[in-house]
């Protein structure tokens, strides 16, 4: 990988001082949420050469790339030009056509087992279906080929990580997530529709810095960005705890910025950095702008509709309001119990009468027998 310089090489070429390099490393340490004591390690990592990245686009809207371009810390331009060697990205690449596709083949051959594969978008499972063709070939084949030689794979966005909107009911293209296609490689899931820009650049910066995957949770999402519920980091949480809710998007509670729990906010089930990092350099996030979270980092979030009710109606079950159904069943049960009780009481009376008559008969028989003896 002699072709690509390290960050420190870049600084030297530009004639910048070691001091400004260390300053930049300190900023990076703070950004990645590392302890100040980790600074020497960050410096060491920044002296490493740049990792090669191949970025593929599948069944998607390119919203994740749009988000990626708006990262402010680190700046997207820094990531693309200084932290990684982005060798193939059909959205950002200046080249196109056959030449560009040939370049992809060349890069995959040259850096086999060394490059990072970043994938955006879901993958239609049937290659003969004609969905999502790249360069005249099905995307499924391209992603499998690229994954075979990758050192690590990053699934950017909910589509690549869980299938996303493409995989939602009724899933006409039979779209699958990257995890369902590739089984034998470590995949970092960076879900979100789209993910927060700084989360996208942060994950790839971590790999560029340390040369390994960031710590992952049981859903293979980076712990530092997906380790908290939005509900637990939300600035409206005190309103939830105090019982102050917006009942309607037009009421006083909504205007006052109270909790959106009753309007179907998915914050209590969603893991993302929206509550603490927020969007666009900390400007805002959906709940701050007055709309409940729709849980876009969750698996099958699109099927957990309607978004404006506390609990979803699962496919085909038609649950409606569970409490109303429960109350109706309780009412029916009360009627049933009353009827059963009344019938049982009648039955018991009959049974007791019968027993009484039998007893009488027995007593009479005994009396007759005793008379006979006399």
């Amino acid at each position, binding site marked *: 990988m002699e072709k690509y310089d390290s960050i420190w090489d870049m600084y030297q070429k530009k004639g910048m001082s070691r001091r400004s390099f260390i300053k930049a490393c300190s900023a990076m340490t703070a950004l990645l949420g590392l302890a100040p004591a980790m600074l020497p390690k960050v410096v060491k990592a920044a002296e490493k050469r740049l990792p090669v990245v191949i970025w593929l686009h599948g069944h998607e809207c390119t919203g994740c790339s749009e988000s990626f371009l708006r990262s402010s810390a680190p700046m997207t331009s820094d990531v693309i030009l200084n932290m990684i060697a982005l060798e193939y990205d059909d959205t950002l690449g200046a080249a196109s056509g056959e030449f560009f596709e040939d370049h992809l083949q060349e890069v995959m051959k040259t850096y086999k087992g060394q490059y990072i594969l970043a994938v955006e978008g879901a993958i239609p499972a049937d290659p003969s279906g004609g969905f999502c063709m790249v360069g005249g070939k099905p995307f499924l084949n391209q992603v499998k080929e690229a994954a075979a030689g990758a050192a690590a794979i990053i699934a950017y966005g909910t589509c690549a990580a869980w299938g996303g909107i493409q995989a939602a009911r009724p899933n006409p293209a039979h779209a699958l997530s990257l995890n369902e296609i590739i089984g034998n490689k470590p995949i970092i899931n960076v879900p979100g529709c789209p993910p927060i820009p700084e989360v996208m650049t942060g994950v790839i910066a971590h790999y560029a810095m340390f040369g390994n995957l960031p710590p992952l949770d049981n859903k293979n999402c980076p712990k530092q960005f997906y380790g*908290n519920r939005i509900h637990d980091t939300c600035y409206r949480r005190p309103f939830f705890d105090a019982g102050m809710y917006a009942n309607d998007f037009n009421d*006083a509670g909504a205007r006052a910025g109270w909790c959106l729990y009753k309007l179907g906010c998915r914050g209590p089930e969603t893991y993302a950095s929206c509550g603490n990092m927020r969007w666009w350099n900390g400007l805002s996030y959906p709940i701050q702008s007055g709309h409940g979270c729709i849980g876009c980092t969750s698996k099958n979030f699109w099927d957990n509709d309607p978004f404006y009710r506390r609990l979803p109606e699962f496919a085909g079950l038609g649950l409606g309001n569970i409490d109303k159904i429960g109350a109706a*069943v309780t009412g029916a*049960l009360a009627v049933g119990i009353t009827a059963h009780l009344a019938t049982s009481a009648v039955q018991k009376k009959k049974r007791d009468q*019968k027993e009484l008559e039998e007893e009488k008969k027995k007593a009479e028989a005994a009396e007759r027998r005793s008379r006979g003896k006399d």
Partner: protein
Amino acid sequence: MAVKQKEFIETSIPGGSQQHLTRYYIFSPFLRIFHWTMVLCIITLFATGIVIMTPMSMGEGQYVTLNEWHLSVDWIRNLHFTAGFILSAAFLFRIYGYIINKGDRLLPRFFQMKFWDDFIEVMMHYCLLKYSHKQFLRNPMARMSYVAIYGLIVVEIFTGLSMYFQVNPNGVGAFLFSWVALPFGEMGLHVIHHIVAWGIFLFAAMHVYMVVRADFMEREGEISSMISGTKILAHLPDDINDIRDSNGKIIKG
């Protein structure tokens, strides 16, 4: 619990005559204490759960009153969690009682034909098609209800703990219970937890009715058995073998 095997007691029998009734010791204190702990916990859990699902929200100003009465969602959630942990802990004691006492082990005998024959007989009686059924320590329907209620409670405990511990997804609790959320997602956990809660509530309503009904239909001391641990029967019950020890003697308290 020094109760003799043949201790005769008087009770009101139709016709005024006296019958020889025997008191059988069945339930250990572990089961009985668990039962009443469960009653308190389930009432608390169900009531608070409904409020958590649809919190009270009556417009501006009401939250001041609610907080004064300790009815804020924060308080109600803490109550819910406390009751949940007490129930989970009590369930462990129930398991201990299950191990040490045969009378706490009156579960359905799924693999015996006799069990299913008796089951049909009892069902016929409950459907009012038969005047009476054989006497049991625990009839097949009641045995099935153990499986039902404990199954529902186990589902509630696991889904509840899974949701609770996700506050810190990197902690020990999440490590132990977060797998519960994997098949249906965390949103699915909430739905399952809520539906099963209604199942438990409906079960409890039916259970209370069946017990009261059994008490006045059979006169076996059904209600008091959950306090004294004993039932009073006129005949040797059909499933007496379930509380005999290895020597064939009926186990007494």
